[in-house]
């Protein structure tokens, strides 16, 4: 992982008797895109609010470039809250300039940045309109511009893709990729797991206020265990149930998905399969993030 910019360190937070977060930890490196996934109520929004200082943690802390985060550091984060937060009856440009100034920009700087971002997001003609006159997708673009206006060093975006049409999704992911390539750290939450998989360098899966899996998609696959798809159509029924060093995960027609116990020799498995007749398929399983997500969720629920 590149240099750590933003670290969430063992956060705990309770609302009355409800535990919102426990032992929540994650790190986002410089220029890294970090995807935050998990069911509703898992603690993603609470974590983000604590990062931005709009909520206080019961224990644990946030570090910025290795030091406990300060109020001034937080101004260098661009934030897009879950419930979009802009003034409905205020003009688009005016609103962006105001938010830029509130993040420490001078008026002229803020106006130039607002013009630039509206142009990049295709909203130049909407600058003079009230926010509430814009479509949902365009409002979301303004919200993104609001998070980006002050050239933040990090972006914290709560469900930035929710409710966007495919074109808007492309615009949004393009901007996030481009920002990350300039060295900005991006932390965002989403339920669109394919998108997270294609976009993010690393992914964190949260459940019930706790980070239960974290790493690159490959790392997650590895920790999920070695699995192999095997298609030996001539093998007798029930043959795959008794193979040493493996567990049968699933059967799909003549294909079986086998989980290998650590240390199991896959070449020996292939030889055993060839003894039953022809082998049409023998390959390592590359589960999608959505598959991994489901897997981690059920394991945790069983644990």
């Amino acid at each position, binding site marked *: 992982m590149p*240099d750590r*910019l933003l670290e969430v360190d063992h956060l705990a937070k309770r609302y009355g008797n409800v535990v919102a977060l426990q032992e929540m930890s994650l790190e986002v490196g*410089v*220029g890294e895109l970090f995807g935050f996934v998990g069911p509703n109520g898992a603690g993603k929004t609470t974590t983000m*609010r604590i990062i*931005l*200082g*709009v*909520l*206080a943690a019961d224990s644990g802390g946030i570090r910025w*470039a290795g030091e406990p985060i300060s*109020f*001034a550091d*937080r*101004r*260098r*984060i661009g*934030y897009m*809250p879950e*419930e*979009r*937060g*802009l*003034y*409905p009856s*205020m003009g688009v440009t005016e609103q962006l300039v*105001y*938010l830029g*100034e*509130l*993040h*420490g*920009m*001078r008026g002229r*700087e803020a106006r130039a940045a607002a013009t630039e971002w509206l142009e990049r997001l295709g909203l130049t003609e909407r600058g003079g309109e009230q926010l509430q006159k814009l479509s949902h997708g365009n409002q979301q673009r303004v919200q993104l511009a*609001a998070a980006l206006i*002050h*050239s*933040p*060093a990090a972006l914290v975006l709560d469900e930035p893709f929710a409710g966007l049409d495919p074109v808007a999704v492309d615009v949004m992911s393009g901007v996030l990729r481009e920002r990350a390539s*300039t*060295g*900005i*750290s991006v932390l965002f939450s989403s339920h669109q797991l394919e998108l997270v998989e294609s976009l993010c360098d690393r992914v964190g899966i949260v459940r019930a206020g706790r980070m239960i899996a974290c790493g690159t998609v490959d790392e997650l696959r590895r920790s999920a265990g070695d699995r192999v798809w095997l298609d030996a159509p001539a093998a007798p029924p029930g043959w795959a149930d008794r193979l040493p060093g493996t567990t049968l995960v699933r059967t799909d027609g003549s294909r079986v998905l086998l989980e290998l116990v650590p240390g199991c020799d896959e070449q020996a498995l292939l030889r055993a399969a060839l003894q039953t007749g022809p082998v049409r398929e023998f390959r390592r399983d590359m589960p999608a993030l959505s598959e991994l997500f489901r897997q981690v969720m059920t394991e945790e629920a069983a644990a």
Partner: protein
Amino acid sequence: MNGSAFSGGGLNPARAVYLVARREFMTRVRGKVFVVGTLIAVALLGLYAVLQITVFDNLNTTTTFHVGFTAQAQPLAAPAKAAGPILGVEVMVTQASDQAAAESQVRSGTLDALVTGAPSTPQVVVKSQLDPTLSSLLTGVVRQEALDAELSRAGLNPAAVQAQANRASFRLDVLQPLKPNAVEQPIVGAILAFLLYLFLSVYGAVIAQGVVAEKASRVVEVLLSTLRPGQLLLGKVLGIGLAGLVQFGIIVGCGLAFTLPTHVLALPGAAIGSVLGGVVWFVLGFVLYALMLATSAALVSRVEEVSAATIPISMVMVVAWLLAYVVFIPQIDAAQTGTAVPPGVENLGTVASLIPLFSPVLMPIRIAAGDAPLWQGAMAIVLTLLSIAAVAWLAARVYANSVLRFGARIKLSRALRQAH
């Protein structure tokens, strides 16, 4: 370490408050409440001034009588004209050389009366009846004429006798003199108090609505990621307060501009002091009430709940305004009749005007009426400032603890207790 173009550290607390205040101010002065409210108030003031000029001036205009005098009756013309002002009327005299023509003028109404014949035995010609005022005026003139004739016959000079009579007078002893502008001053105070009450209500509601609107639209979440709650609260109060002050200034300014030239209300020099006092109390009262209203509003999440949440504070405002009535009406009565204000009322006014929550409405009245000693004014200001400091401390705490809690109304005690 990153591609950030600037440090983001250029926002000191004062600039943060300024930015919030500027946005609030600009939003309000371009808003409907401000533009429409100001136009209506100015239009009403203008209408009132116009009514005063047209209606009241008509009521007060001195009646003018046109009276013709034939050549023979001419000696009576000058005394008749001179007698007019004494009776509050004006007499326009014309010389009627042709009696027939003059009579037709009486018939047509151009002349109210025609006086003919010798001064000692005059005749008065009218169309259908003689106006009672004109009748007594002419009677007086004729009697004077007769008196002068008698005096001359007795060998006296009528003019000298008259001059001697005019010198007689009496000395005036006033037991309870009226204060100068004794009636106008409480009225000025009452108008100020009413305006203050009105503006506290209107702009207090604007503050409360603004706080909840930010909460409902969740803008507050973005704002609090870069501002401290106290900065946001203070900026809102200052920006909206300034907008209110500007509107207050426009309306009071127009009021003065309309009333001064028309003399609807003879404004004493002291009124300037009253207006200044009003401004000071507007600022203090606004800050005090706005902080309380913003805090109560922060406890709820939906705009529809605002009025319910702010009822206790609105009630205090109404009580202050009712007290103002109880205090200032006897003052006006007393000023008009020249009697003293009942001591109970005076004490109530004095005590109530020193209570911080009531001072902003009551003190301006007392200052305008000129019955608040300087030390009481100063004491009320100090007490109010202390209350503002206490309320600001509590407000910042409650506001910070509740502005990010959505859903059901938050209990005040809970918002006070929890450290964020």
